[in-house]
């Protein structure tokens, strides 16, 4: 190992916290939440305004809270409550869903991509 090797490793390791901070940090928060019910047009809600939404799905009403720039399922008439356990979503691109109730919640931010994914 040479001194330059050591320097490269140190620089690489030092850049890591920066990367974590950039991509997991506060400036990667979403600004809006997209709520999709079945195959209807998505409804957008701002994450900046705290509110409680009652979204009518296939089984009944799902209660979604928007608080401090995060959104979460609080109540849902589904059997497993996966949506509630997935917790608060706040990062750009975070997505959770209550599949039995056919409700999808995804956080969007500035410059959001047009596609969710492309499959081959």
């Amino acid at each position, binding site marked *: *190992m*040479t*001194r*330059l*090797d050591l320097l*490269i*490793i140190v620089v*690489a*390791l030092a850049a*890591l916290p920066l*990367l*974590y901070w950039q*991509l*997991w940090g506060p400036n*990667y928060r979403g600004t809006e939440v997209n709520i999709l019910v079945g195959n209807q047009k998505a409804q957008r809600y701002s994450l900046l305004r705290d509110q409680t939404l009652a979204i009518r799905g296939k089984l009944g009403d799902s209660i979604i809270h928007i608080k401090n720039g995060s959104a979460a399922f609080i109540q849902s008439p589904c059997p497993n409550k996966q949506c509630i356990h997935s917790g608060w979503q706040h*990062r*750009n*691109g*975070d*997505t959770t869903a209550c599949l039995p109730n056919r409700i999808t919640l995804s956080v969007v*931010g500035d*410059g*959001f*991509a*047009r*596609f*969710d*994914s*492309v499959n*081959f």
Partner: protein
Amino acid sequence: MNTTIASERNDHIIAWFAALAIAIHVLESAIPSPVPGIKIGLANVVTIVVLVQFGWRTAAWVSILRVLVGSLIIGSFLSPTFVLSLSGACASLIAIGLAYAIARQHLSALGYSVIAAVAHILAQFWTAYLLFIPHDALFHLLPILTTVAIVTGIVNGSLALAVQKRLKLLMSEAPNVDQQP
């Protein structure tokens, strides 16, 4: 560009090391990965050793041949896996090529390996983002992937150093085997 045809001896070196790298590549593909996208990339040890011992051109041949033939054997040729693999290999080669040109006296296998690993993951990530999964959530993976890349870079680099030590021993025991400059 230098367009001279490589010597026959150099061809043999490329073929032997490429074969070794392909074998490692194929064997490693049989090991299940805990998280998709995370792999040790042991075949890169061969690339790094070849780079330090025989120069960048030979290393580039070995690396590209490994990706091409390895994908043909595994059956991922021209699939997204192959595209990602090729983009990573090309980026690594460019990065270590630059490092080799600028600072070859000051770098060992370890430095090259870390540079290659980071270039590899960044190129793969951007390829994946631009071609296959243009979803912003993908960026949450980048810090983890980069951390793993640096760790595997250090591991592979240390392995390459160890291999080099053995290789030097072998060559000193067999004095009639001359080392290619």
